[in-house]
């Protein structure tokens, strides 16, 4: 048990902290609008920072040097990430491409076409997005209906994708399509990669209930791509999907967002019957409960770090952290509104407490319990993969996909 850096880790941390301080982009000149994710100005800063990191060997620290990485360790990469967060210069644009999609692509395809995509992605010049989910395949992630039909040396793809984060700014996408609906659900799928400007592909932003539009629908109408952009074997795409998930690393140290410290600050400045809300025993009991849960998320991320440092893959236990984070965030924002009382209704940046940050997070928090696996899927993962309980009874097993019952 040790919750402090080892001497080598501490040295590495000092080095990168200085380097970040010397090289990080100055964001002080940006307005509130420009600091928002996906704003062109924000994105341009992120791109330049990624290039700066690539030049100094900090872009993909744990990748081998011949792929544009630094040949470093997972723990070094994690420390660098923590220091980026600390300095306020962590960006999410490149994570899907660099942490999930490109490693899986290179695992299956190492031709020049694929290898050429690596350097611009590492430098942040090209952004990748995932084109897996579909309207009818939410929790049932293999329930893909988008089809790819072989036509000579090409594939012709038609269908609809959804929840594609960043598809509206992405340069390339990795897509999952059904190539044989006569096979059982997981068997007839194939993965492809493609230029997001390929004719027949259209991206439409989705507005979510909190107002943002960084998620998208992607419509594909007879999109034609060469067989050389196939990833892995025909009808063996589920294996590639698993590869992308295996490469997904718990976002270490990304404890951004409102925390128990913000709740203490809010309660301290909010009047109550006597003194501030912070002096209210009922609030204090709530705070204690909230703290032990969110502190556990932080501490459990150290376990992932410990696994990484031993060269082990993080296990399904990260589902616990995901469940805690999403549920406790929703609970916390609800509590924040409640202690503000009637005034908690206000969400405008001009009048609301803390520019309406709690109100915005309140409207955004339901999405946390859905994206990246719902509460229900997380609990199934824990029950089945950790506790060894039986899977749900499956009526769609070993049934040709086209015969599986479905709703609208």
């Amino acid at each position, binding site marked *: 048990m040790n919750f402090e850096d080892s001497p080598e880790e501490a040295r590495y941390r000092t080095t990168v902290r200085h380097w970040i301080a010397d090289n990080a982009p100055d964001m002080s000149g940006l307005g509130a609008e420009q600091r928002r994710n996906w704003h062109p100005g924000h994105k341009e800063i992120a791109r330049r920072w990624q290039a700066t990191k690539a030049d100094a060997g900090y872009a993909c620290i744990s990748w081998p040097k011949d792929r544009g990485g630094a040949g470093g360790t997972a723990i070094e990469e994690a420390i660098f990430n923590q220091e980026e967060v600390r300095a306020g210069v962590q960006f999410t644009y490149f994570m899907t491409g660099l942490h999930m999609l490109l490693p899986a692509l290179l695992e299956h395809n190492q031709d020049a076409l694929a290898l050429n995509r690596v350097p611009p992605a590492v430098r942040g010049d090209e952004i990748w997005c995932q084109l897996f989910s579909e309207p009818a395949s939410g*929790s049932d992630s293999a329930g893909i209906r988008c089809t790819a039909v072989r036509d000579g040396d090409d594939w012709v793809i038609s269908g609809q994708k959804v929840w594609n984060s960043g598809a509206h700014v992405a340069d390339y996408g990795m897509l999952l399509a059904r190539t044989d609906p006569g096979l059982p659900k997981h068997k007839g799928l194939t993965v492809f990669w493609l230029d997001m400007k390929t004719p027949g592909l259209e991206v439409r932003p989705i507005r979510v209930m909190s107002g943002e539009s960084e998620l998208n629908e992607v419509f594909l109408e007879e999109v034609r791509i060469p067989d050389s952009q196939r990833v892995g074997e025909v009808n063996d795409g589920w294996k590639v999907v698993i590869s992308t998930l295996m490469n997904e690393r718990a976002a270490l140290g990304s404890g951004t967002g409102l925390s128990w410290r913000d709740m203490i600050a809010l309660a301290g400045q909010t009047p*109550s019957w006597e003194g501030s809300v912070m002096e209210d025993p*009922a609030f204090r009991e709530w705070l204690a409960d909230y703290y032990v849960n969110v502190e556990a998320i932080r501490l459990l991320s150290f376990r992932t770090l410990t696994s990484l440092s031993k060269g082990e893959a993080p296990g399904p236990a990260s589902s616990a952290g995901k469940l805690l984070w999403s549920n406790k965030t929703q609970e916390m924002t609800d509590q924040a509104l409640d*202690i503000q009382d*009637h005034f908690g209704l*206000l969400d405008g940046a001009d009048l609301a407490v803390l520019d309406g940050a709690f109100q915005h997070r309140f409207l955004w928090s*339901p999405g946390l319990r859905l994206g990246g696996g719902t509460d229900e899927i997380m609990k199934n993962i824990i029950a089945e993969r950790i506790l060894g309980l039986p899977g749900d009874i499956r009526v769609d097993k070993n049934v040709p996909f086209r015969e599986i*019952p*479905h709703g609208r």
Partner: protein
Amino acid sequence: MNFDYSDEQKALKDQARRFLSDVSPLAVARKVLEAPSPGFDATLWTRIGEQGWCGAAIPEAYGGFEFGHVELCALAEELGRALAPVPFASSVYQFSEALLHAGSEAQKLNLLPGIASGERIGTLAFSEGPGVLSAGRISTRYSNGALTGTKLPVTDGGIAHHGIVLALGDAGPDLFLVDFSGNGVTRQAVSTIDPTRGAASITFQNTPAEPLGSAGKGSGSGLEQLRRIHDRTAILLAFEQVGGADRVLEMARDYALERYAFGRQIGSYQAIKHKLADIFVKNEVARANAYYGAWALASNAPELPVAAAAARVAASEAYWFACRENIQTHGGIGFTWEADCHLFYRRARHLGLVIGAQRDWKRRLADRLVRRVAQENAQRSEA
């Protein structure tokens, strides 16, 4: 003993539901959401006024239609179900109840007919800043027949013709009646988490006002008076919350029957079945306490203060839980702007805060329970 609406009340409720499903589909609330100014749907409001609903609990002597308070509860349940974007709660559950409870004869005769017909809109203005309301945190002042200060937020404050304002008078906090369309009133729309229920910041600058009530001058008991008015509001709002929570449960149930995952309706999974059963139980708890509140309100029973606080605590919890888990049941689609789930999620939280938050009402309830037990013990030792 009758734990139910009477047949006549049921007929009124059915008729109200049919009427509202016709004139107030969710598209009407969505229209206000997309274009929040002025914060209500004027056409819908006119139609509702024509039904005489605003005067349901107002005696005929004041231009009302005297259906009764249980009838008003039945209408509230349907308005909550319909998510009607109208100032009914402010004008009827707050302003009209305040006048009925604490207004002078002249004030009632003067103002209630306009409220009853729906031609005039009233509201209450009490909050000024974050946190629970207390005497020390009121800075709006009344002296020499005029108000000065700022109230924020005031639901329906931008469209109300009249308001009852909590301010510091000579004797302490008191309630004052103000013509919002008169001189010295500056109103500014403010953004809230539920744009379908518009709100404003209202600044008074030497605005003519008069104390609420027959004494003609304040007694310094404005906070207690407001609490008694809000007890009545709480019961009526509880019916809006119960109506909304029921509808949200139906939405979740319908979606669970319609949506498939892994070749099965998602409603066949116990995770979803038991989630919806949990919503049902909370809704039953809310309904039971609301019904008891309706009886206490209609019969002006001594149980009113306890019943009102219990109805509010139970209904606020049920509606919020139902809306939260309805989105969860819908999955990603439930999180989109286009889906209707968030309209209810917003409204549930609006209703849960608009006359004070859960922590405030829970303590009121506990205080009242302790007082009741003390009375019971005193009676027992007397006997």
